[in-house]
């Protein structure tokens, strides 16, 4: 009971810190505001210009960062639990690269704009996920095979992406490359609502499937012996995991490493059994809000947040590999 309580408390704390970080970030910008100003502007429309700056200009971006971080964190926790592998996150097993391929085809081959890129990203991501699933399927999908097949498919997609960029016109290639880096600079309130709806829907579905996920952690034999319908449960979890990465990727472009790192960090902080879903959401949200704050305000010229998460993630990956090697 004590461990459960500690897990719940640390999860609540993580969620609070993520929200606080978001509020602080709302004060940053060309028109700096204190935390109390931000809070007043949020709740009181009569603050006029402050209200406009915070709620209309900055809020969609910060809320989107929170939501995208949460979606990616949960998605990563699902994938890593299913594959029983800390490297089994959606970006490693091909989803993000496939989404980029879809967006690239929409922009450079079909000549569509950003709307087309969104649709292309979803189609590309889902298509890649389906290819990986089918190739990895052999009397059920096993974690290790999913990772290996995913890495292979990712390599092929990356090559295809490079070729697509090379043969595109310069301006188109430039626009595509910026989309490919992942950025919140174009997000609006509609995006935030779509993300919120996605997260809400996924959370509701997860409530029903999460107990099966906890069983799958014990191995397929034990799960079946406990009465889990293993393949349907795994497919449902994969679909939820893919949606949670597809929608954010379609809206803001591929954002690396949140799905990879957030679940492992959350598990270490909360010391939970297995990878915690809600805490992974909190850590993902926190890291992405901070990363976007840094991308937007701390670096000259404002870089896409994807480049910041790549750097954070690179450091994390080096640490993870070093820690795993030491354990062996």
């Amino acid at each position, binding site marked *: 009971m004590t461990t459960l309580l500690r897990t719940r408390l640390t999860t609540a704390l993580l969620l609070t810190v993520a929200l606080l970080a978001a509020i602080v970030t709302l004060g940053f910008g060309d028109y700096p505001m204190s935390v109390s100003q931000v809070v007043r502007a949020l709740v009181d429309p009569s603050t006029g210009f402050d209200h406009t700056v915070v709620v209309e200009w900055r809020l969609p971006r910060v809320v989107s960062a929170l939501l995208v971080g949460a979606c990616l964190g949960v998605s990563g926790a699902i994938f890593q639990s299913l594959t029983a592998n800390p490297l089994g996150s959606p970006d490693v097993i091909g989803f993000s690269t496939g989404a980029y391929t879809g967006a690239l085809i929409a922009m450079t081959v079909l000549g569509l704009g950003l709307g087309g890129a969104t649709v292309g990203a979803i189609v590309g991501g889902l298509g890649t996920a389906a290819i990986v699933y089918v190739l990895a399927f052999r009397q059920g999908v096993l974690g290790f095979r999913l990772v290996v097949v995913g890495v292979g498919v990712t390599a092929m997609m990356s090559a295809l992406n490079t070729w697509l960029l090379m043969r595109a016109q310069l301006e188109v290639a430039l626009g595509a490359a910026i989309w490919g880096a992942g950025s919140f600079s174009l997000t609006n309130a509609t995006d935030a609502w779509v993300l919120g709806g996605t997260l809400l829907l996924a959370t509701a579905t997860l409530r029903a*499937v999460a107990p099966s996920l906890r069983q799958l952690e*014990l*191995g397929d*034999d034990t799960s079946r*012996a*406990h*009465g889990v319908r293993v393949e349907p449960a795994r497919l449902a979890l994969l679909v939820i995991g893919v949606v949670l990465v597809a929608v954010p990727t379609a809206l803001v472009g591929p954002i690396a490493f949140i799905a990879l790192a957030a679940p492992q960090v959350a598990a270490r902080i909360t010391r939970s*059994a297995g990878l915690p879903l809600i805490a992974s959401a909190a850590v993902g949200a926190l890291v992405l809000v901070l990363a976007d704050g840094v991308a937007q305000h701390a670096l000259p010229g404002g870089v896409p947040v994807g480049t910041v998460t790549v750097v954070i993630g690179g450091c994390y990956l080096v640490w993870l590999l070093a820690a795993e090697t030491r354990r062996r």
Partner: protein
Amino acid sequence: MSSSPARLVAEELTLGYERRIVAENLSVAVPDGGFTAIVGPNACGKSTLLRALARLLSPKAGTVVLDGRAAGDHPPKDFARQVGLLPQTASAPDGITVRELVGRGRFPHQAWWRPSTSEDAAAVDLALEQTDTTALADRRVDELSGGQRQRVWVAMALAQQAGILLLDEPTTFLDIAHQVELMDLFAALNRRGVTVVAVLHDLNHAARYASHVIAMRDGQIRASGVAREVVTAHLVEEVFGLRCVVIDDPETGTPLVVPRAPSL
């Protein structure tokens, strides 16, 4: 025992993986309330038979029947409330405590809209008590010794509170004291009314603890019946290819297999 009615029955099973057939035309009735041991040399199909009984492997032909109804026709959770399994390999998530892990055996009694109840907590407490792991309840599973960990896995299977418990080589990798301790535990559970079916490596364990022994070789059942009838020098040589004498166990009077020394 073998005359008692059987809840779990295998009818003319053909078992195998992908294209490889492991066993054909296997029929087994698990005596209700008994302690059945399945023995045989490596790769004789004994674990495969157990997997089929546990519904982990669907037969290529034939049916497993529980309570007069094909196993596949029972909803999975209903089946799991009747038949529990201790698999050969299972993995515990990092950092999980003993109580949490044992609690996961309650899955077939739970629904997502109705998670843990006081009944679940009581079942977990009982399972911990029966396996003598109550003192370990708040420890992390990855800190335990091999013997303790195996008792915890047994506790998880017990928390399922199924009337029939299937055990797949439950004592492998344990030292002799822990093996005997675990076998005594299964015998005690059996006396309390749990039907036990165990795939066992050690013929002497089977002879000492089981009320019913099934001997398999090359995917076929060579003998089936009470230990004294099955565990004979003739049959051991036929099934295992081992020349031996069978004497009375000085402790229990059950058959005891003693391999012959090589003749010089």
